């Protein structure tokens, strides 16, 4: 049976195309206007206005023509856009002139995501993306403009048929119900509501103009949202907002520097005296304060806006367990929905950046196989590919077990305790982090070299003759340079100390552990990342040694999973070689695992 997408594909798609063409025309029109006004007075008013009318008519005419063509194309392509669900595969047919068919066997479906822009959301339609595991060049299959009802139906159908194919029979409601029964039923933790939930609830009730009735897609056994505090912290600690603040600060410094240099006299003279004269001038002070104040306010506003944007982006965040699937949705304006089967989860990642670590919070995400971005918003997809599927952006560390138990009961028997790193790793780590990769050390080396070059090779005389300045002036500048270098040395020492602390933290808290089904790997430092990888999902095991590591009897341990786009390697440096080989032996398929019963 052919399933068609919603008819808003024709007109909403046309509106989108029309708007982008309009934008292009607006840019073109600007030049026309500029020309028109620039030419004013050179010719008679009559010919001038005639010119204008003609060109405007041409523009409007071509615009109508182009948009008309697009609309016709959209309408025709709508006729040829449909999908079918057969016993074994999902097929998408599209294309007017060059026909395209995509077939996805159900057992290849990795995750089903849906996304809706604000406009789409108002009309209750969304774009569904089906990720497949097709190697490194895989692309998501995109089905545009489905109603919410259709999308939910398609998602549940894809997942249940996938189950059915795997079990050799169509899964029925009873089976999936019993599967849900086995999962412990958890309640949403207390205080898990936030101010923006109200908005998302309103959206939920509204559902969009053509959203249709809600479809029963399975039993929810665990669900939670973000509390006010968590939402706020997510917004504030959002990386992009930090970057923006950084840019704003840099901009402010630039402004201040500009003001200062404006104050500096152009000609060589008594700088200090001139500065005092200028600085005491109230106008200069006022101007300086005004600029600084403006920059500060602008910075604050930008920061608040970006934090708010992040908050709204995470507004209405819900993560839930429905039958065997894990679903997350978020976004107050632009709605993003991700759904992945538990079987497809490659790893559970607990990530603590520096700030989250200070506060005792972490980001909880699931690594899954991501498709390379097939559509235009590549940056967004790439970002998501890096993150995996975030199931909680900012959660207290103590709540993690509770959430994992509710969301992923399968990951319950993850190994406890860690095999620590051998003592020699600390020495190696210090050498590596503080000297070989040590920014502080190399900064000190560079500063020393520069100092030696300036003071010994050039000296006061060389400097004075080289830049044609008086020798007293040269001596003063050299002195300033030397003081700057002292500051740089202090900076280098601070950096080296920080690196050493990071290294000690890494040594103390990193390690790995494994039991029958799972492997846990912790990489610590100022930020800490913990991976929990099922043995089944490890594509291959790797140990790597270089000559120095061999002398210290340590090795680098590398785990390769298929997560992300084209696979991910998780590594831990300087594991004892004996532990490493025991781990490699663990990687050999066990007798009970190697011959699974043919279900």
């Amino acid at each position: 049976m052919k399933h068609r997408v919603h008819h808003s594909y024709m007109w909403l798609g046309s509106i989108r195309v029309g708007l982008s063409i309009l934008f292009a025309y607006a840019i073109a029109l600007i030049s026309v206007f500029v020309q028109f006004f620039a030419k004013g007075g050179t010719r008679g008013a009559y010919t001038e206005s005639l010119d204008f009318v003609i060109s405007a008519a041409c523009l409007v005419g071509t615009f109508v023509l182009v948009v008309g063509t697009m609309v016709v194309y959209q309408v025709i392509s709508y006729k040829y856009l449909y999908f079918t669900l057969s016993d074994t595969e999902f097929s998408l047919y599209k294309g007017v002139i060059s026909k395209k068919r995509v077939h996805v066997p159900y057992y290849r479906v990795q995750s089903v995501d849906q996304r809706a822009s604000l406009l789409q959301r108002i009309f209750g339609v969304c774009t569904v993306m089906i990720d497949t595991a097709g190697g490194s060049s895989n692309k998501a299959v995109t089905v545009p403009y489905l109603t919410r009802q259709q999308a939910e139906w398609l998602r549940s159908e894809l997942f249940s048929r996938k189950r059915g194919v795997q079990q050799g029979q169509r899964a029925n409601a009873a089976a999936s119900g019993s599967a849900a029964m086995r999962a412990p039923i958890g309640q949403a933790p207390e205080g898990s509501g936030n101010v923006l939930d109200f908005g998302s609830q309103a959206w939920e009730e509204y559902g969009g103009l053509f959203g249709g009735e809600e479809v029963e897609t399975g039993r929810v056994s665990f669900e939670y949202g973000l509390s006010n505090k968590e939402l706020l912290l997510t917004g504030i600690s959002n990386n992009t907002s930090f970057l923006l603040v950084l840019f704003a600060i840099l901009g402010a410094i630039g402004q201040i520097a500009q003001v200062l240099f404006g104050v500096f006299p152009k000609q060589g003279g008594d700088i200090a005296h001139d500065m005092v004269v200028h600085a005491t001038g109230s106008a200069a002070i006022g101007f300086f304060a005004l600029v600084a104040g403006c920059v500060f306010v602008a910075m604050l506003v930008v920061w608040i806006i970006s934090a708010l944007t992040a908050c709204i982006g995470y507004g209405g965040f819900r993560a839930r367990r429905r039958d065997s699937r894990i679903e997350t949705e978020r976004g107050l304006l632009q709605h993003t929905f991700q759904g992945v089967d538990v079987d497809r989860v490659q790893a559970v990642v607990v990530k603590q950046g520096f700030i989250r670590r200070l506060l005792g919070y972490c980001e909880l995400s699931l690594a899954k196989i991501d498709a390379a971005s097939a559509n235009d918003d590549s940056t967004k997809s790439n970002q998501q590919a890096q993150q995996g599927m975030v199931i909680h952006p900012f959660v207290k560390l103590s709540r993690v077990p509770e959430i994992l138990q509710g969301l992923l009961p399968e990951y319950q028997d993850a190994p406890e305790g860690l095999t620590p790193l051998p003592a020699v790793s600390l020495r190696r780590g210090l050498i590596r982090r503080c000297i070989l990769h040590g920014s502080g050390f190399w900064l000190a080396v560079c500063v020393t070299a520069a100092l030696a070059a300036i003071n010994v090779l050039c000296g006061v005389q060389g400097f004075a003759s080289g830049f044609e300045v008086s020798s007293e002036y040269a001596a003063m500048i050299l002195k300033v340079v030397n003081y700057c270098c002292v500051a740089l040395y202090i900076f280098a020492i601070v950096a080296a100390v920080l690196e050493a602390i990071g290294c000690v933290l890494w040594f103390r808290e990193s390690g790995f552990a494994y039991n029958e089904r799972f492997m846990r790997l912790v990489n610590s430092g100022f930020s800490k990342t913990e991976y929990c990888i099922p043995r089944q999902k490890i594509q291959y095991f790797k140990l790597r040694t270089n000559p120095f590591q061999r002398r210290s009897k340590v090795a680098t341990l590398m785990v390769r999973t298929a997560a992300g786009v084209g696979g991910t390697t998780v590594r831990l440096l300087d594991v004892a070689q004996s532990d490493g080989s025991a781990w490699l032996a663990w990687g050999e398929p066990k007798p009970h695992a190697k011959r699974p019963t043919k279900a």
Partner: protein
Amino acid sequence: MREMPKTQLDPKIKKVWRISDAIWITLIFLACFVPFLIVACVAPSQTWAVIVMAAVFGAYALAMIVFMAVLPPIRYARWRFDLTEDYLEIAKGIIWRNRYLIPFIRVQNTDTRQGPILRAFGLSSVTVSTAAGEHVIPGLGSDQADILRDRAAELARIAREDV
């Protein structure tokens, strides 16, 4: 430390490495050498071109010695693999030594490939692909390659879940 895998590659692989490396090095050498040769022919007064040519030739000779005489036996000795019922284990690398363990149930497909040099020696290289990356065993006798391919295919069929 876990003991090294036992199986070694076919000894003929050393010749294959020598030939293919010789071709590559010679190509790179020509690409670097010829421009200066032209300069030297066009403007014989330019002595620097001759010096550069001598240096390039020296580097070429050194590379040839290293890649023809020194490296192949060491590489051959270090390249080992084990093909058991359930997994493929590879140990390779001279300075950075790598050990791989690839369970066959994770293998998605195996290819055998034969370039002209390999074919001349009656060898084939087997590529074992998992969902995240592939591994190449460069020189296997054709019969061994077939065994490996068939085993991987059989175990991949038994595997419960693809990824």
